[in-house]
């Protein structure tokens, strides 16, 4: 089983190849958002480095969102283009779930954060019960203050610390440090951000559970409607 993982939901651009139980190649940058110029060259590089070819892929796992609308579309459209010729399945992987899954083995309540702008954060609540990955709360857009309260309420209930991770940390870390009331951890550099290796690994697990879409049907998960639609709704139209 050879799965290509693609992550382009926000600042991170990442591509990975998962062969059975091993990430045989991964290429990640947390640099600038020029994903449309970087991700396909990354994919090409890791395929060539591992002497693979696009035709050998069994599935494409893609970080489905939430995130930057444009970033999500670049990943989605590229995945669709890659999957279409060989009629490969596309495995939609929730972006925040994949960040949390990267912290496998942690005993903390996992709270990945992505800057959702407009004073909000994209976040969810996750954890591990031994090897079992638990989704306590699915991804949503909320004010950071509210997300902190939810994370801490769950942590108190479970008697665990909270670990924050995700590329939203630089934006929200100071606020969390100021307002926290339970033991709090901040993920280290190597597990903090999105990685296509996690997307592919969680993708493989989801695929086994029967999750799949196709080049025709896959769509990103934006969580928010367009500004124009929101304004119409506010006006009661």
């Amino acid at each position: 089983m050879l799965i290509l993982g693609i992550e382009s939901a926000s600042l991170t651009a990442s591509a990975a190849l998962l062969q059975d139980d091993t990430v045989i190649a991964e290429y990640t940058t947390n640099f600038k958002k020029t994903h449309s110029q970087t991700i396909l060259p990354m994919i090409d590089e890791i395929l060539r480095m591992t002497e693979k070819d696009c035709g050998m892929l069994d599935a494409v796992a893609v970080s489905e969102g939430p995130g930057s609308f444009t970033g999500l579309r670049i990943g989605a459209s590229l995945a669709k283009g890659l999957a279409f010729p060989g009629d490969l399945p596309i495995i939609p992987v929730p972006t925040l779930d994949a960040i949390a899954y990267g912290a496998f083995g942690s005993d903390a309540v996992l709270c990945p954060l992505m800057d959702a702008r407009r004073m909000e954060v994209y976040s969810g609540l996750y954890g591990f019960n031994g090897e079992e990955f638990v989704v306590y709360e699915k991804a949503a857009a909320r004010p950071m203050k509210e997300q902190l309260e939810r994370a801490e309420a769950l942590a108190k209930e479970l008697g665990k610390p909270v670990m924050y991770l995700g590329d939203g940390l630089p934006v929200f870390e100071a606020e969390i440090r100021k307002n926290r009331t339970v033991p709090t951890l901040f993920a280290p550099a190597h597990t903090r951000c999105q990685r296509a290796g996690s997307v592919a690994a969680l993708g493989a697990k989801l695929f086994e559970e029967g999750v799949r879409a196709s080049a025709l049907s896959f769509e990103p998960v934006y969580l928010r409607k367009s500004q124009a639609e929101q304004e119409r709704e506010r006006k009661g139209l």
Partner: protein
Amino acid sequence: MLKDILILGIESSCDETAAAVVRNGREVLSNIISSQVPLHTIYGGVVPEIASRKHVEKVIPVIREALQEAGVTLQDIDAVAVTYGPGLVGALLVGVSAAKGLAYAAKKPLVGVHHIEGHVAANYLEHPDLTPPFGCLVVSGGHTHLVEVEDYGKFSMIGRTRDDAAGEAFDKVARAIGLGYPGGPKIDRKAKEGNPLAIPFPKASVDGAFYDFSFSGLKSAVLNYLNHAKMQGLSVNDADLAASFQKAVVDVLTEKSAALIRERGYRRFAAAGGVASNSALRESLKTACEKEGAAFYAPSPIFCTDNAAMIACAGYYEYIAGARADLALNAVPNLKLGER
């Protein structure tokens, strides 16, 4: 006999998701367009975020349908051509990303196409006799250019709009008189019931640049006329207003086109772009060309609107000239004509 060359064209620069298969640059085997017009109508114009989302949904179904209707498989395709600018960046990125993934996975060469060069190339699809050089008026919602097509893929810009594009003026005036979006076809229809000489609107020119256009003054004159009438409690004849506005646009476009044909001695002159399907403009340009002794060309309305057959056609000439896009091809929202 050389082998046929099949190009798969992909277009997503604005509010149409389109794919097409074209043989040898001239013969359209399929031309699939998924229009989003009804989605944007309630907003009075294209909402980029809504357009981009719809492109993601439609891009592969449209490509699949284009291949099916052409009766070919991806393996039969010689190259993939995709619009990479100008246009809405979020919209362009969908077509560009999908085309890159598809070309890479199917091991096909990729060619990036300039949207406006595509519009010009739309003229080749139905006119086997048309070859460069010729003069061309490109008029759409986003562009108003007078260009010389020196050769396939080789253009020189002679005139351009300094402010609004002609199609943009149509949209704004249509909105002001309550016709709604898209304004071009609605004004065209309304104008048929009106008197084009009823209201004298200004025909703006640009000082020191005869071949440049300006439509914002005309647009303001129409809005002022409407305001004035409203304040005086006078009723406005929408059909007369539409006809008079349209005449002002058509006259300017025709006058400059005719002067260019005369100056450069063109034997062939073409119109391209969405506004080229305006019936008054086509009639006026045709008459002017006859007078100047030039053959007049314009695509059928289906090839005037944004479509991928024109992209496949322009892509074909790029492809046979050896142009290839690499894996890093990006969307360029303000791509200049002739820029590579």
